[in-house]
């Protein structure tokens, strides 16, 4: 309008950050580990969005993938086992101005941290969550995790695991107030990038399940997954995650799925014939708990003390 040109320039960042601006140290994961791909894609996302490292925080628990914050040149919190979510939620609650990312593994999230996981989904605070699921405890040298497939032989299950694995997508979809659930694989960097980008752009708890290789303790599974390109099925929809046409052509199977349909998403998550990659479910209007968390930001220490005194005065005799 008003003869203004449409390229309205808002809020230019103060400086330009290149990929190296987000790199820190040399990643100490095993050669060939899928974590490397996630790390690079995450750094690329930060570069595209030109996020200020001083306003970005990566939170993790314990495990191979939880070493992630060490390799990002941003703020980071390598937390307690299973406690990535409470730390991240606390951070977001009091500092809504920060971009919060959670990197967690199948043990950290689905085992010891499962309780916190469920509530974090329900809180639906605005953060991006990457579950790097390699279906094994790698850091402690091969013990079955809750997501290990039936019959996985490990140090704790020498005769093969006997319980069916947790399906993280299904579990997340089953919790009240889930707002963004997507799945991708680490050996498809193009798709993974678009997925974590969509997750970042979603306002709320954006949960990305990344099926990931462990070339040391799950090498058989790796070969099977990576070499079989037919195993992947590309979920497409105008509101879903789209990759460029060249990449899309390489997927032999695809399925049209509307990400606003929760029942269809649940049904799809239960089917195991393909690895479905893309957006299972998104609800842009789910309430976010962090919207209520920052009410007293900006209050001085004196004001807080005064309020505390007032509160205590109620109990004085």
């Amino acid at each position, binding site marked *: 309008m008003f003869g203004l*040109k449409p390229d309205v320039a808002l809020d230019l960042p103060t400086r330009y950050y290149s990929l190296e601006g987000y790199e820190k140290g040399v990643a100490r994961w095993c050669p*060939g580990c899928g974590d490397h791909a996630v790390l690079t894609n995450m750094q690329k996302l930060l570069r595209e969005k030109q996020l200020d490292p001083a306003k970005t925080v990566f939170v993790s628990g314990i495990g191979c993938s939880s070493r992630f914050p060490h390799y990002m040149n941003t703020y980071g919190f390598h937390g307690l086992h299973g406690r990535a979510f409470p730390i991240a939620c606390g951070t977001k609650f009091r500092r809504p101005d920060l971009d919060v990312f959670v990197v967690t593994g199948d043990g950290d999230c689905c085992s010891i941290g499962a309780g916190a996981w469920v509530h974090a989904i329900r809180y639906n605070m605005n953060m991006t969550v990457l579950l790097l699921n390699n279906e094994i405890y790698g850091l402690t040298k091969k013990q079955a995790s809750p997501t290990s497939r039936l019959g996985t032989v490990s140090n704790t299950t020498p005769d093969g695991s006997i319980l069916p694995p947790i399906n993280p997508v299904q579990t997340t979809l089953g919790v009240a107030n889930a707002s963004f659930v997507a799945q991708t694989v680490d050996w498809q960097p193009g798709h993974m990038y678009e997925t974590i980008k969509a997750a970042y752009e979603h306002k709320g708890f954006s949960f990305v399940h990344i099926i990931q*290789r462990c070339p040391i303790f799950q090498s058989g599974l790796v070969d099977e997954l990576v070499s079989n390109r037919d195993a992947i099925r590309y979920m497409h929809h105008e509101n879903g995650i789209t990759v460029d046409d060249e990449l899309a052509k390489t997927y032999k199977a695809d399925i049209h799925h509307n990400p606003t349909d929760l029942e269809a998403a649940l049904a799809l998550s239960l089917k195991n014939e393909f690895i479905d990659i893309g957006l299972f479910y998104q609800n842009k209007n789910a309430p976010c708990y962090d919207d209520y968390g920052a009410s007293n930001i900006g209050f001085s220490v004196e004001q807080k003390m005064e309020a505390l005194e007032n509160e205590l005065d109620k109990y004085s005799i």
Partner: protein
Amino acid sequence: MAKNKATEFSRFFKENAATSELLDRDKETDSTPGISKANQLPKIDVQKPLEDDDLKREWNKLRNFFRNSNAHAQLGNLTPVLTSPYFAQSQVSTDFPLWVADEESAGQRESDCISLSDLLNHCISTFGKENEEPSILSNNVVRIVNIANGLLEGNPRHFAGAIAEVLSQLETTLDVTGDDEFAFNNDLAELRKALPTSGVLLPYSNMLPFQILEASIISSSLPARKDLAKSITKLTGQLNNMVLLETSKSGDSKNPDKLKSSMDVVQDRVNFDELSTLLPDSASQSLAEERLTRINNVLSTFTKHIDTLNTNAFIHLDEILSKDSSYNWKGLFEGSSIETFKAGKGSDTVQQSFNESAELLTPLFIAKRIAELEICDAYRAAVHDDYFENFDWQNLHKDELAACPPVIMIADDLELLDDELSRLSALFTRGYPINVLAVKRKTQINHGDNGLELKTNEFHSHAELGALAILHRNVYVSQSTAVSPIAMFNSIADALPLPLPGLHYVLSATGLSEKESYLWTSAAVEGREFSGFTYKGMLGTPWGSRFNILNNPQPECEWPEHSIDITNETGENSTLNLHFTFADFVALDPHCHHHFMPVPNGCWTDDLIALTSYLANDENENIGKVPYTWMMDSTNTLVKVAVSWTVVQACFDRLDYWKFLQENSGINNYHVTNALKEAEERIQNEFNVEISNLKDQHASELQAVRDEEAGQTMEKLASILLDLDTTSVIATSNSSAPTAPSIETSEPEQVQEEKSEEPAQEESLSTSEPWIETPLCTSCNECLDINGAMFKYNKDKMAYLADAKAGTFAQLVEAAELCPVSIIHPGDPLNPNETDLDDLIARAEKFN
């Protein structure tokens, strides 16, 4: 301790507390409407119905206001909704700063006036490769423009110095390090090379129309004038040679002293007296005396008049403008002659000035033409003497006229419309190629003597200088504002060299800050108060082709229409379509606020109708109605504001002039619309007739077939009943069934065959050269650990084969084996002398 409810903990956890607190903080930083509330949509409050009596009282008040306006009405902080983006002007991008050519660079580039962002994008595109991802530089063009705007601080600067500072500031700001640094520095160096080395960078300012005029003068006539001066210098040289040659033919040249002076090296050894007697008389023919005289006359005219070409333009300023201390005329038009004229004397002065300059320049062109004829010895006295005798400026070729310094009058529009009008009209009628820059300095709304009183009639039917000039038919008329500077430049620079009178009507917002001035000027264009157009009065061309009104917001509409997202009274998100009308423009002027009255939302009945509907309705439909326009307050709440009858009349007037411009340029033309309607009706009628004919024909054919079928069926039935033979009926119904499916079965086979060919082709291509599927790389470092020279990461940290010869085939094979996603294809060995090749080739095979 005193109880303070405001800071009890319980309050912190109240629902919505967060949002309201955060918004409160936003408000503290900026209370102007429209900004810093990106996440809060403009809203309409829930309506509070009024009791019947109250409603009646309010409406009486409203109707009274509508007819008489109300000197006590207050708009407060209400502003027209669509102006709100302007309150954050730092966040919007415009055509500024502008690059315009100076004397050094005029005519050297495609355009002599271009916005800095277009200039940068153009330069970047000259060295950027096609299909490449945008570089850091191209992503930061907006930032460069912002830095430049900050640096200029409202004053023009020479381009070279300014852009050097801007680019070094960009380097500091972006602080690009790492892999991108090299490419970025490279791009910057290329950009510096591609950018012009001279010119001027102009920011938006109230001076802009005059700066654009200066740039247009330089761009349109300076290159031609330079060429003219050059050719005159060349002709002078040639003519001087002719004169010199003639002198050498005379007997005087054999004088011993002359000979001595021309041969200084061998002076001692030559007897010049002897030599003088030995030399023969000139063999060639001498120039006729009259030719020599003519040549000498030409040379003296050149010497006498060539200085006239050193003036850029002859500018005549009206007294009112020349006394206005906000303009620095000498600084604005450095190379031009500037003179002031008294009120009412403008047209006479410029005509006289034109005659004077014609007196100086016409002999120059006559001399040039004679010189050219003399050099070719083509001057024929019988023909040319008469021709040049009666030669005046009207005989000049249009290219010659274009090289003359233009004669320009700059005057206040009110002055031109007053005493000057008849003389100006006479000037245009005579067809003198004089250009007039008419400056509208104030809003068209006259404030009355004491600044506040506004009589009903003062708003409407003001004389339109542009329209008056158009009616002379042979005048180049343009109307433009500083918010579309490139259109302004193009029309003025286009008009100056033409052998036509020109009138350029511009809007200059003096007395306002730059931000206000930009808003006000834009609103004047958007509200159809001062629409941009050009009328190119070339006689003989079709009338409609002379008009162009495309440089207006939504030229096809009566009023520009925009839609905004809002939260409506029921709390739902919806879209509101808004028109920006002349009334919105008027509302920006605090002196006119008494023509607007906010209407309490309890009174929003059906009698309150949108201003655009009011303007579009029949008179009868508007009885009892009051028009409103939407405005917004500082809390982003939308309010209906009633508009007074005076402003409505003014809107009618503005719309009328806008429709005049529209129709002339072929938009919504009355005759065309009627003709279209007639044609449509005619076609529809013909169509209806044809349809009804066809229907009749069809009905009669149907009836015939039915009759025939009924007869046949009856006959068959009769024969069946008589013969009891049923086979004939069954046989006819099954006759053509079995042949169809054969087509379906044949196609899939063909497709399968085609598909099976494709992989075979791919395989035949895949061997020999080593390669990597870079887009599938998972950045695991494996290959780089084996050989960091052979494998490298691109800027997205994905591996590519940098140099296959930087390592051995063994390393390639090893990398292929280690690559967790098997995207390395080693191909055939490049070095046939490598050891264990057979084994390596066998190992490589499964990756190729």
